[in-house]
């Protein structure tokens, strides 16, 4: 009888525990080692991945369980929309800032509580705060900042007798000519420069370097209140002419790609910092001898473009309070020693991005040599504007740039068409 009573009590206790447990769903585009951590050859954990931080939080908060929902970047926005419509949205999103405007305006994102928003403003770099701010309201905690830099093959430079990376765009074209090799049919066998044309990240990898050149030429993509495109300006045309010059001079063509860089057939590409981790994996021990990183060569003044991600909470979440509590612990609270955030540690050590928190940035700047060049570019970086219908506008710009690359339009016509299409998109959206 007594045993039965104990059993019933135990079952009751387990049920109470089970039903009182809060489950948070954390949606991210990260996968693989970014979630599971980096291990050495003997299987020892070198750097913890996202799941290790979540396990740490669960151990500290027994009533909370956090599930990771991995969604490829290409389907990420669609997953948010469908999840929101079906009432199956995640509680926490690691969100690309460009999507923030549409999602915030449609009330998909919850506003950050006041204490979180003020800590974000005080502890994070201005570029990252700009990315997490939609219509003047902080919508989350910055997760990463990515600037763009020139990645070059030091060995190919050495073979061509070039001793340093190009500083200006004119130099890039000149060096590119020296670095390009063609076969008897005139087909490029070694690219002086390549644009990644067939990658999942192609849109960003074409538009962001263009923005860098645009800023460098003294132009802007939009007017100050983001209601009109300025891509038909002489500066915008000049920036595209600079890109097209590479094609006209035979330094590149649309057949080149990132794969060729790892095959040592491409001398220069422009990429974000996360690409460096792929290169390390591809080149292994040769990485140090081959890969060089330098600022994007400029037209008039040094400049680069940046994009950001931020952690946000779904407005439809039933556990908003718990979600913000977790994010506060993960991305705002400093560990005792070293005094850095867990999110910053994950970003810098594993993801390969620039940590947006100032203290994290200071700590990792000296620790991670690869990030240094990207971090130094923050002083010249302009964050991608949080414009409405950003995704559609970005794709429109890419279409016009690629049309000019393929000689289907002159740079002037391409930019004129881009401005006209973007103005029409903005007009419909507003």
């Amino acid at each position: 009888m007594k045993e039965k009573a104990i059993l019933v009590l135990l079952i009751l206790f387990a049920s109470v525990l089970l039903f009182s447990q809060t489950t948070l769903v954390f949606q991210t585009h990260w996968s693989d080692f970014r979630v599971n951590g980096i291990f050495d050859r003997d299987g020892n954990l070198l750097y913890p991945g996202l799941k290790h931080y979540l396990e740490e939080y669960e151990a500290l908060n027994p009533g909370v369980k956090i599930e990771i929902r991995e969604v490829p970047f290409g389907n990420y926005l669609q997953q948010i929309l469908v999840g929101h419509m079906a009432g199956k949205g995640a509680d926490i999103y690691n969100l690309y800032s460009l999507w923030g405007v549409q999602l915030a305006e449609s009330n998909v994102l919850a506003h950050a509580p006041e204490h979180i928003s003020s800590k974000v403003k005080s502890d994070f770099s201005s570029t990252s705060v700009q990315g997490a701010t939609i219509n003047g309201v902080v919508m989350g905690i910055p997760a990463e900042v990515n600037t763009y830099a020139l990645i070059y093959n030091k060995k190919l430079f050495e073979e061509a007798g070039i001793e340093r990376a190009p500083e200006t765009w004119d130099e890039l074209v000149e060096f590119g000519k020296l670095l390009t090799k063609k076969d008897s049919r005139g087909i490029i066998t070694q690219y002086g420069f390549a644009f990644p044309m067939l990658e999942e990240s192609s849109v960003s990898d074409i538009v962001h370097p263009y923005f860098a050149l645009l800023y460098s030429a003294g132009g802007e993509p939009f007017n100050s209140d983001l209601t009109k495109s300025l891509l038909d300006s002489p500066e915008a045309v000049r920036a595209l002419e600079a890109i097209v010059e590479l094609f006209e001079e035979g330094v590149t063509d649309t057949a080149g790609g990132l794969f060729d860089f790892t095959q040592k057939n491409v001398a220069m590409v422009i990429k974000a910092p996360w690409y460096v981790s792929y290169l390390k994996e591809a080149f292994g021990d040769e990485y140090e001898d081959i890969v060089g990183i330098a600022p994007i060569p400029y037209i008039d003044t040094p400049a680069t473009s940046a994009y950001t991600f931020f952690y946000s909470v779904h407005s439809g979440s039933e556990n908003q309070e718990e979600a913000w509590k977790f994010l506060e612990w993960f991305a705002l609270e400093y560990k005792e020693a070293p005094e850095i955030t867990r999110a910053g540690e994950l970003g810098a050590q594993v993801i390969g991005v620039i940590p947006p928190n100032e203290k994290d940035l200071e700590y990792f700047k000296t620790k991670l040599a690869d990030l240094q060049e990207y971090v130094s570019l923050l002083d010249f970086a302009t964050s991608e504007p949080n414009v409405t219908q950003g995704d559609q506008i970005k794709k429109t710009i890419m279409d016009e740039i690629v049309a000019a690359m393929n000689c289907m339009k002159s740079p002037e016509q391409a930019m004129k068409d881009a401005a006209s299409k973007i103005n029409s998109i903005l007009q419909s959206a507003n």
Partner: protein
Amino acid sequence: MTRKGRENLTAYLFLSPILLFFAVFFCFAVGFSVLVSFKNWNMLDSPISAPFVGLGNYFSLFTDPLFRAGLLNTIVFALVVTFTSITLALLVAMALFKLKGSAVWRFIFFAPMITPAVAVGKIWSYLYNPSYGVINHVLGWFNIPARAWLSDPNLALFSIMIVAIWSGLGVPMLIFTAGLDSIPTSYYDAARIDGSSKIRTFFSITLPLLKPTTLFLIVTGMINAWQTFDLIYIMGGATPAKSIQLVSTFMYSTAFSYMQMGKALAASVILFIISLITTFLALRSFRKGGMESYYA
């Protein structure tokens, strides 16, 4: 209840699952799409409260250069892929008909049909890759310059059409084989006795008697081609949207990337009407033919 009434009730009971399925996934879906195509719905708010814009979405589509390009590309894609596939399938079916070991060949031609389109798209993307793809490598042996098959706007749609034709050859080939099998040999015997050449026999006996089969393949082929999405989505890359955009991919990006579900559904209604008209025209032009016309 009379016996006939009971029989009718039983018949409807047996049909009810499929009728229910049809009502929910076709009638409701089509009705909902038409209704929402008159609204400015972003998918995040309720479709009921979304503002009514009348024919605004339809006008906006016809002033959108991307949609116009998509519509033109879809028509070209559907016509080229359907008619090339059917022609090639007929040739293959005739070549393999009554051939020794034809089952093996049929399996080889049918294999792409049972391969998921995503896998087909990925594999062909590798084959087409300008740097390490087999196609450029083979062309190199004949001194033919390497091409950017998927990133050159002038080539991209053509390259994807080849994949669609290749992967869609299996079913028409099998159906043509069945069609060829159903033609009585006595017709061929009579033709031979009359001294008819092989070409004359083909155009006077084989082709007319395959009319119902051809009609079926054209209608289903066109409908499938209008709806092609996966290959473009997988193989598209950074090709300018205007060069490879189909109405289906336009609908997808408009709805799920740009959150303009009303406009996307207006595009789907237009595609539905075009599909309906094409089917009607095909049925009308092939109304007579096949074995039945000979017996009539």
